[in-house]
């Protein structure tokens, strides 16, 4: 067989009489056109122009003409005589929009024929002002795509497309499993965003929410046949963009009292920052001289010595990225090799992240009919330590901004085992031993490592039967392997977050291993033919997806030997959890486009999936999509200022079921509790990209241990439904593309409407059944919105100033369309939603008010309505009204300058850091304004801590004097039966700012979700060809100065709203009201060097 193949693959090209012609293809203004196809006729010998528009072609003696075609230009024919070179100028095709875009399955199509919304971003646009995460760079560039850039190292951006998360990533035509970090931006030719179901229906249920289709770079088009590119960028982070401000007037303590105990380790105090005012008075503190014989501490002056603790602790972050790629092309083959390396030094000391990727792809044309392509990408992420962020003593934001007293100087703690409190390798030297940890001890010893290897690649063979018909077969793998570890060092303070913590313990060790393997094998038959006025392009194929996933989570229950981080080194028996899954999907699909002359293009796709996750009988389903487009300006006389007009519409219906986009740790998969709320009580639960089975429709017994390590079982709380059907989503889209003024201005408008459901939904049941819910096909939501993309070449001049503008705008609303059966209310996210209501409406606890809208008080604190779901009040919608991006690009000769603003306007968000910082007494607002005045008065009432303080804060509003309020919907309905008087009852500031007062009233902490960011600024200089002319070695060089996240506008700048991209998420029906702690977001400056050889 092998021999047969070999014989078959070796083919000969017979030599004839021939000669070589060189030349240049240029625009009417004389600029070279790259990539133009130069074809000799009738021999059909062809070549392409290089970057400068030059070509070289060997023609046969029989050839009479040269035909030149290039996207965006009118084709032209040149009649040959005996010349050995010629220059040809092409007319710009102002009428047609002949951009070619990559669509599903990597099929390139003319944009004008596409009947659904799609937007393409060139990879080269994203490699300069770069982010450590490549996908973050898409922020603000695509109408309808929201990128919630994450402020955490190795944090995954939250991608939301038309209100849906969990987008499918496709690289070179095949779905890949990605954490968004395993993509090397330098290897990417283009990103195509398939916006919604209509564009991605052919991918089946995985394409439900739309897809990001990535096309990687291939072999060079350079005339030498090879090319080397180098890109290097370095960015610095040293300025905070959004950060909570802290007070430095009061130190730790409560009720204005503080004293470190007369002992070496005072571990009984877990105090907030409601202590005495800094007035230099003498107070026993952590670093007071300690007399071991008497066991007494000496009081020292109480001062704000740590006012700049956060700034003093954080360092300049650096992100350095380098890429070298080499590509080569011969008439039979093309190859590209690329290697990239990213090194990030975090702003928190001792944190870093590296990624390393290697990509090789190549194609070989065995003969004119058979082409084989292979691609292999390897990506490695590694870090010995990245910070963790949540509400707990493991995070810096908690340490500095929630409970961040200025009464210690963080620089004093850098010697982590300083005596007498510190004991080398055992007990850290800390500012307290109750609630917090020394930031330096955390930085040096509490380490969280991450190590992940990703491999994806494919082997593909294409056989061209004829020019019109080809068959390709491809087998692809996407696999990754990840290990995360956490070392909690000896003596670290965990309060009592974990049951096995005790003061002075030896620490803990955790390990989280995950492994995913997926293979997609497909066979596709392609047909492309022009028959008279009809242009038919079609493909049909079958694929098999095979999926396996395995995970492990283990933890010690306190270490036995300090500083030995191994699961076996556990004081009490260690705990371990494993969780795995398997899945198989068989699919058949087809797609065909028929263009009828210049009038119409009709596209239709269909797909049948058979999923192993659904029971027999309902595991096979078909989803169709159909789209129609027509270029009006091709056959109707339009006003002359309109150079192009296209109408399009499409419809799709997608089904799927019992899979989930992400997967948590084995611990959570088994116990149903996340790490933070379940086992150790700290640490953010990590969700990995998954797209596998969720087993949510099965009654089963699972292992659990509730008491003293004894074995027990849980039985499912959800009643499985053996007749469950796949969920359904239909989507309708209508759009118009217009170009004005000779294509200088473009307008793209899309309206979409999707019916999301009936979903597979765990509908609650009466608890008297013994169960909490039953699986039903229920809940349909309706999404409706529109997107506008406006592009304009405001100024255009070959030698002068060019100015290009791109503006995008997107908005949508999601409402409840149908619940289930006769149900009239859907109980979700703290509210009973009725049909027609917006699902992103947030209901929560609110102030109770009188007829004049005054806040009503009772006993000095705000009166509260009963706390059941029906008394939650509407606090705003959490989805923004609209999102926008505004890009500007200027260029004069070799200098280019670009900047981008983008943001989201409207909606509300819960300001969690504000709430936590007020409760902790750290937020600046707790010591300024009315709170500040009352706080000072209360402090003064202690008479320098000789008597208990007198309460001084009187909330503005009225107090309930008599009567019994009745409530409906959180509002008093019998105001006329009640009497009120101005509130004159004082409360303590600490108590009022905390849970007894406004702390438990969500309304108080809601803030505007709108923000605008100056996302990126890029000033570039390309060395003129003249300068490079002499040295043939360097062919191009561009230097840029870049900035990212330079300015941020928002109502409250104590946190970066950007991260909270999702409001209501229809995949898991959650409502993201914000509120979590996050690391301070940073401004970033740097430079970029791009060289081509």
């Amino acid at each position, binding site marked *: 067989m092998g021999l047969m193949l070999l014989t078959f693959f070796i083919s000969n090209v017979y030599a004839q009489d021939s000669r070589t012609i060189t030349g240049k293809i240029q625009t009417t203004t004389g600029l070279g056109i790259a990539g133009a196809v130069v074809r000799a006729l009738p021999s059909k010998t062809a070549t392409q122009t290089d970057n400068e528009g030059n070509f070289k072609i060997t023609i046969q003696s029989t050839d009479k003409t040269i035909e030149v075609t290039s996207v965006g230009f009118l084709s032209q024919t040149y009649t040959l005589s005996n010349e050995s070179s010629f220059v040809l100028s092409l007319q710009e095709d102002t009428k047609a929009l002949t951009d070619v875009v990559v669509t599903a399955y990597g099929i390139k199509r003319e944009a004008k024929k596409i009947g659904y919304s799609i937007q393409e971003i060139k990879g080269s646009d994203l490699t300069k002002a770069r982010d450590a995460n490549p996908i973050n760079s898409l922020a603000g560039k695509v109408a309808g795509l929201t990128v919630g850039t994450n402020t955490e190292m190795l944090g995954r951006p939250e991608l939301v497309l038309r209100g849906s998360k969990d987008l499918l990533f496709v690289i070179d035509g095949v779905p890949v499993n990605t954490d968004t970090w395993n993509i090397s931006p330098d290897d990417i030719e283009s990103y195509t965003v398939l916006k919604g179901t209509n564009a991605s229906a052919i991918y089946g249920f995985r394409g439900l929410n739309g897809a990001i289709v990535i096309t990687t770079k291939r072999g060079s088009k350079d005339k030498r046949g090879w090319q080397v590119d180098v890109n290097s960028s370095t960015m610095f982070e040293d300025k905070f963009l959004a950060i909570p401000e802290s007070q430095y007037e009061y130190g730790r303590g409560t*009720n204005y009292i503080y004293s470190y105990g007369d002992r070496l380790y005072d571990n009984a105090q877990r105090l907030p920052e409601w202590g005495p005012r800094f007035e230099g008075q003498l107070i026993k503190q952590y670093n007071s001289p300690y007399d071991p014989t008497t066991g007494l501490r000496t009081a020292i002056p109480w001062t704000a010595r740590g006012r700049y603790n956060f700034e003093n602790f954080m360092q300049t972050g650096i992100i350095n990225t380098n890429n070298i790629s080499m590509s080569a092309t011969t008439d039979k083959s093309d190859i590209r090799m690329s290697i990239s390396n990213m090194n990030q030094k975090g702003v928190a000391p001792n944190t870093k992240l590296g990624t390393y990727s290697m990509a090789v792809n190549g194609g070989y044309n065995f003969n004119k009919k058979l082409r084989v392509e292979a691609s292999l990408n390897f990506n490695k992420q590694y870090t010995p330590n990245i910070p963790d962020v949540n509400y707990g003593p493991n995070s810096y934001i908690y340490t500095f901004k929630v409970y961040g007293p200025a009464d210690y100087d963080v620089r004093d703690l850098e010697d982590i085992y300083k005596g007498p409190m510190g004991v080398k390798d055992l007990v850290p030297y800390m500012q307290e031993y109750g609630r917090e940890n020394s930031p330096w001890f955390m930085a040096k010893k509490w380490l969280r490592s991450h190590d992940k290897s990703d491999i994806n690649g494919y082997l593909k063979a294409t056989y061209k039967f004829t020019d019109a018909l080809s068959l390709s077969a491809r*087998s692809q793998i996407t696999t990754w392997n990840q290990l995360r570890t956490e070392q909690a060092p000896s003596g670290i303070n965990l309060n009592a977050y974990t*049951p096995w913590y005790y003061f002075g313990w030896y620490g803990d060790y955790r390990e989280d291993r995950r492994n995913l393997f997926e293979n997609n094998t497909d066979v596709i038959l392609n047909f492309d033919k022009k028959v008279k006025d009809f242009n038919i392009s079609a493909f049909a194929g079958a694929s098999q997806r095979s999926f396996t996933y395995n995970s492990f989570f283990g933890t010690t229950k306190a270490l036995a030997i300090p500083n030995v981080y191994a699961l076996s080194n556990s004081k009490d028996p260690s705990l371990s959890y494993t969780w795995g899954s398997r899945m198989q999907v068989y699919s058949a699909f087809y797609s065909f486009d028929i263009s009828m002359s210049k009038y119409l293009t009709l596209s239709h796709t269909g797909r049948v999936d058979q999923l192993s996750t659904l029971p027999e009988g309902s595991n096979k389903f078909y989803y169709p999509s159909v789209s129609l487009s027509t270029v009006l300006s091709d056959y109707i006389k339009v006003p002359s200022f309109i150079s192009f007009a296209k109408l399009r519409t499409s419809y799709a219906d997608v089904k799927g079921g019992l899979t989930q986009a992400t997967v948590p740790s084995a611990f959570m998969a088994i116990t149903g509790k996340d790490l933070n709320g379940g086992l150790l009580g700290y640490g953010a639960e990590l969700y990995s990209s998954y797209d596998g*089975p969720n087993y949510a429709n099965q009654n089963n017994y699972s292992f659990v241990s509730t008491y003293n390590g004894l074995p027990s079982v849980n039985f499912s709380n959800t009643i499985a439904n053996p007749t469950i059907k796949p969920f359904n989503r239909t989507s309708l889209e209508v759009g118009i593309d217009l170009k004005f003024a000779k294509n200088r201005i473009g307008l793209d408008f899309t309206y979409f409407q999707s019916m999301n459901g009936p979903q597979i939904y765990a509908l609650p049941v009466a608890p008297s059944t*013994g169960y909490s819910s039953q699986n039903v096909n229920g809940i349909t939501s309706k999404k409706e919105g529109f997107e506008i993309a406006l592009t304009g070449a405001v100024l255009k001049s070959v030698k002068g100033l060019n100015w290009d503008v791109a503006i995008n705008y997107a908005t949508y609303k999601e409402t409840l369309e149908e619940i289930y059966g006769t149900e009239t209310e859907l109980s979700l996210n703290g509210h009973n939603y009725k049909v027609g209501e917006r699902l992103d409406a947030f209901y929560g606890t609110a102030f109770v008010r009188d007829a004049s809208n005054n806040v009503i008080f009772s006993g000095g604190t705000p009166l509260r309505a009963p706390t059941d779901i029906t008394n939650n009040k509407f606090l705003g919608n959490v989805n923004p009204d609209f999102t926008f991006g505004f890009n500007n690009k200027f260029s004069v000769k070799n200098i280019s300058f670009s900047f981008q603003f983008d943001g989201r306007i409207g909606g509300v968000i819960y300001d969690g850091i504000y709430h936590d910082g007020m409760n902790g007494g750290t937020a600046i607002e707790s010591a300024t304004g009315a709170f500040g005045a009352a706080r000072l008065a209360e402090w003064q009432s202690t008479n320098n801590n000789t008597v208990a303080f007198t309460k001084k804060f009187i909330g503005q509003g009225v107090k309930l004097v008599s009567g019994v309020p009745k409530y409906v919907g959180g509002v008093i309905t019998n105001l006329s039966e009640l009497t009120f008087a101005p509130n004159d009852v004082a409360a303590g500031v600490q108590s009022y700012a905390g849970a007894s007062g406004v702390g438990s009233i969500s309304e108080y902490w809601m803030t505007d979700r709108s923000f605008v960011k100056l996302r990126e600024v890029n000033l570039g200089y390309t060395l003129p060809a003249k300068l490079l002319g002499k040295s043939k070695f360097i062919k191009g060089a561009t230097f840029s100065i870049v900035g990212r996240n330079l300015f941020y506008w928002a109502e409250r700048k104590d946190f970066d709203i950007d991260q909270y991209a999702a409001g209501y998420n229809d995949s898991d029906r959650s409502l993201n009201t914000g509120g979590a702690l996050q690391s301070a977001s940073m401004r970033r400056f740097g430079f970029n060097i791009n060289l081509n050889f």
Partner: protein
Amino acid sequence: MKTRIIKTITSLLLVGLVITGCQKGDLLSNPNVASESSTIPASLLLNQLTANFLKEEEPIISNVYKWNQNIVSNYTYYYGSNAYTWTNTTHKYDQIKYCVKMEEQALKAYGNNTNVYHALSKFFRAYSFIWLTNRVGDIPMDEAGNPNILTPKYNTQKEVFKKSLMLLDTANMLMGNLTTAANRNTKVDATGDIFGLTYLQWQKVINTYKLRVLISLSKRADDNADLNIKGQFAAILADATKYPIMTGITDNLVYKFNAAYNQYPPIRVGNTAYNNCANISKTFYSVTADYNDPRVFVLTTPAAAQITAGKTVSDFTAYVGEDNNKSQAAMSGFSTDGKYSNLSFNRYISSAAGANCEPYTVIGYQEMCFNIAEAANRGWITGQSAATWYLRGINASLEVYGITNGKVVTVGNNDGTKTNLGSVTLDVTTFLAHPEVAYKGDNADGLKQILTQKYVAFFLNSGFETFYNWRRTGVPTFAEGGVGVGTPNLKIPTRWKYPQDEITYNAANYKASIDAQYGGVDDQFSKMWLIK
């Protein structure tokens, strides 16, 4: 040529397939768990039932004990609010589900329905139904716990009690048949039963619990002859062989905490440092410190300000309770002014396993003594002396706390920084002789004493029993009418609303039941049949 090409491509494809392969076998079922049809040892289900017997809110020093007016929180963030702002109740139907599953699996394993798992299942069913009916009134019972009946019909509260009493009788009978001279002191299931009780002890628990249920029906004892409340009560006391009951505190059903997995609640939730956020209720001291009750010295700490002012730890007036009526804003957060007493740090906070405090009683002998005393006082039973059982109850309670006459104990402060503020010689004799403690006879005053001492014996244990006894009898007098009560009318509620999902998803049956019971209004202040 064409066939060769096809062969080529096919072989390439095959290579791909060989690398990955088709996955065979059952891909539908979750490989990480056991399917519904699996055989599961009944012992694992018994463990589920016993380990989750206490609802989340019930353990020692939880919210319940604020509503029982044992303690008062002065700081919301750590100890929550004192307000009686009850809304929708929780439930125990999950236990019914596990009873169904345990019976199913035990039948598979033993081929009969007379085994110990079936016997205990009857008890757990009765306990769960009564637990819920006490909170709301009528509840689904006959049709409950069945995934095929999604809208179960309601049984009246009277039916629920009647049927639960029958379940308890069956449980007793089954346990009686299973208990032999050889196994009476053998644990029923060493790993499944977290309470670690023997066959005989379980039978005692069942009957002792039945006495609690019967006495809780005191308001309906005269007008519901068909329930035969008094007769059933008397029958238990009349036949100790057929109906063994607890004979001492070693028979108590207690939840034992352990350091490694089930830590003592204040330690588990990280509240060791906030003992000063929980003050002792004035209601408690009004019937203990005022009566020279030695339990005061063992369970609580003196108010710091009183000690600073010169009082000794043995002075009952140094123990000052906080008023549940007061708004939290009016209290001193972290009791920094030292005006009020706290729980004994030494006893309740110092050990993760709760090693220095009493085990948490769920159903106890001390309560049973008072229940019998009450029945005797009310004339339900003959041949039993209310006075004797009353005294037995007090002594059993003292025994739980290790209190004996003349014992010397040290008293520490509220945050553990001073474990010895002084010592006290416990004087049980004077206490028992106190005019408010010495039994006043089988009359209303005597009954009030029985109920008062039961309240004291319920300190930080037995869940909502304190509240239910107060609701039934009004003894002792609870603080209400103040802002601290937190309800719109500042009164203590008498019930909870039904679970929200019951209201929403069993609407027709719920509505019918609310109409029949409360004239269509599901609010917290209506009176259910039990206490009408």
